[in-house]
């Protein structure tokens, strides 16, 4: 088993939201609260969670775009969280990102060629214009864009095409890791599949590892080798994609699955989407012990007193005191 390419240990990202008041105690927003995982070469790790679970903050913390409060981000033997900013900048050629809103992530005043070629200018300043252009054209072809479009501007493209530009820009340096922050959420339904397939193809071609972040379990499970479920900044479950489907063990994972309306009228009538009760607690004042206990149908006293550790059960890692006892959900 080779070394994982990226190792996150106990990553915490806290924000000070005390406000400018003279009075009142300090308020801390725990966006990411002790997340650990490994990412292997050419693996896709799906990260799923609802609003407020910290997945976007996690993505940015891994890339050093947001300040890490504590924890380790190990890449190629270095802890990225401890690097000075210029050293971190040098590492960026190995870790790239694709954004959720394709058009917002492209500078409206630059054309496609300049946008895709910019990373080359940052890291290969001696490359000539022609060499750069050749690489840009090659990348455009990989992502399914026509080379003739190289002089066009972002606003002349549709959402799906703009996302292809973003993908080309992220991959042109052939990074080892690409973080995909909800790459298809903002796209039209008929385009989502194209982009998901494209990412899978590019992974096979370039051997890049992907951190695929989404709020929708179905697409995450579709592309990922393993899936990680986050809630209020903590990992609830981390399991291979087929285990998540076959035997989800954490009550939150089960709740997520049961909340998905099945795309089959007979099943939907028999078994409609089941809502999860309660409201999301504030990340400034999370519940004691297990953060999910306020909405968990199985919560016991121990859940309020002791925070469950992520432990191995079969093929999965689950953070729940009652993981072995909880029944699975009926899947037809």
């Amino acid at each position: 088993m080779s070394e994982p390419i990226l190792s996150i240990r106990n990553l915490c990202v806290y924000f000070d939201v005390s406000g400018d008041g003279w009075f009142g105690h300090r308020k801390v927003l725990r966006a990411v609260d002790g997340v650990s995982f490994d990412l292997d070469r050419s693996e896709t790790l799906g990260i799923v969670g609802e609003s407020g679970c910290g997945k976007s903050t996690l993505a940015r913390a891994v890339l050093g775009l947001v300040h890490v409060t504590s924890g380790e981000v190990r890449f190629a033997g270095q802890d990225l969280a401890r690097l000075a900013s210029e050293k971190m900048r040098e590492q960026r050629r190995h870790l790239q990102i694709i954004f959720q809103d394709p058009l917002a992530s492209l500078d409206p005043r630059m054309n496609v060629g300049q946008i895709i070629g910019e990373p080359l200018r940052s890291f290969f300043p001696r490359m000539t214009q022609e060499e750069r252009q050749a690489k840009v054209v090659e990348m455009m072809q990989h992502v399914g864009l026509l080379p003739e479009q190289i002089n066009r501007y972002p606003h002349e493209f549709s959402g799906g095409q703009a996302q292809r530009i973003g993908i080309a820009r992220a991959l042109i340096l052939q990074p080892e890791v690409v973080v995909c922050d909800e790459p298809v959420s903002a796209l039209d339904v008929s385009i989502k599949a194209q982009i998901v397939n494209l990412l899978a193809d590019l992974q096979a071609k370039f051997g890049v590892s992907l951190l695929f972040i989404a709020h929708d379990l179905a697409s995450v499970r579709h592309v990922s080798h393993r899936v990680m479920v986050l809630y209020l900044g903590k990992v609830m479950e981390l399991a291979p994609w087929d285990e998540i489907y076959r035997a989800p063990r954490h009550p939150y994972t089960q709740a997520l699955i049961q909340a998905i309306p099945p795309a089959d009228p007979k099943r939907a009538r028999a078994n409609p989407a089941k809502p999860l009760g309660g409201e999301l607690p504030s990340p400034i004042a999370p519940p004691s012990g297990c953060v999910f206990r306020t909405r968990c149908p199985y919560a016991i006293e121990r859940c309020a007193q002791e925070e469950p550790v992520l432990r191995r059960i079969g093929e999965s890692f689950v953070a729940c005191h009652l993981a072995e006892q909880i029944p699975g959900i009926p899947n037809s």
Partner: protein
Amino acid sequence: MAAATDALNISAAPAGRSLWQDAFSRLLYNRTAIASGVVLGVIVLASIVVPWISPYNYYTPQWALLNAPPTFHGGHIFGTDDLGRDLLVRVMWGCRVSLLIGLVASIVSVVIGVLWGAAAGFVGGRVDAFMMRIVDILYSVPFIPFVIVLVVMFGRNLLLIFVAIGAVSWLDIARIVRGQTLSLRNKEFIEAARASGVRGPTIVTRHLVPNLLGIVIIYATLTVPSVILFEAFLSFLGLGVQAPMTSLGVLVSDGASELQSFPYLLFIPAVFLASIVYCLNYLGDGLRDVLDPKER
């Protein structure tokens, strides 16, 4: 190989339509802005050409023809002033001086304002707070006494007027540029540039500045008329350009004192002053409609 054939394709690749081209073509639909541009262009052209070709100059008195009314035949199309100087040429010189002051002072204030505002907005935090407090303090300095003090200390010279006006007008632009920088800083494409390894200063020059240009152009265009009016005001108070050199403000001031007997001495320069200011404002408004990112 494939790269070579693609190289052929690329040179034939159609040019995209940049946001500037898009904005310009939309500007052409704004008839008021275009008309203003044309009128302004005519005035500028006239102010350059007329003193050149006219047989009269702006300073030689003609004692025989004091206060002659405007006439098409006598050669003095706008008449003469109280020293017998040709009003047309004086008005044209006035336009030159006012426009020049407007242009130069605006450029100075834009340059200072953009650098100040962009730096404050980009660096943020305490530096930003400090820089903007300085702007706030300068805003509260009473301007007229300040200029009077300068004039008393250095005399009435044209350069001084540029400096005085520029020193005050940069404040508005600094605030606006800072605001725009703050909002741009949070945009995803800036984060994307950081994530792809672009260095801080390069982000400012390559990404921030071109996206700031739009708003800078708008406010620069709107600064010019306010500078011109301000200069006119100073001249009206007697603090502006020295005689015999004239500006529209001086002409209006001189004309005002003769309003009862020779109204044309006031109205003609006033019409020119008002036209220049109106046209610049309409043009600036039109530019704002097409360039303001919020309007998209």
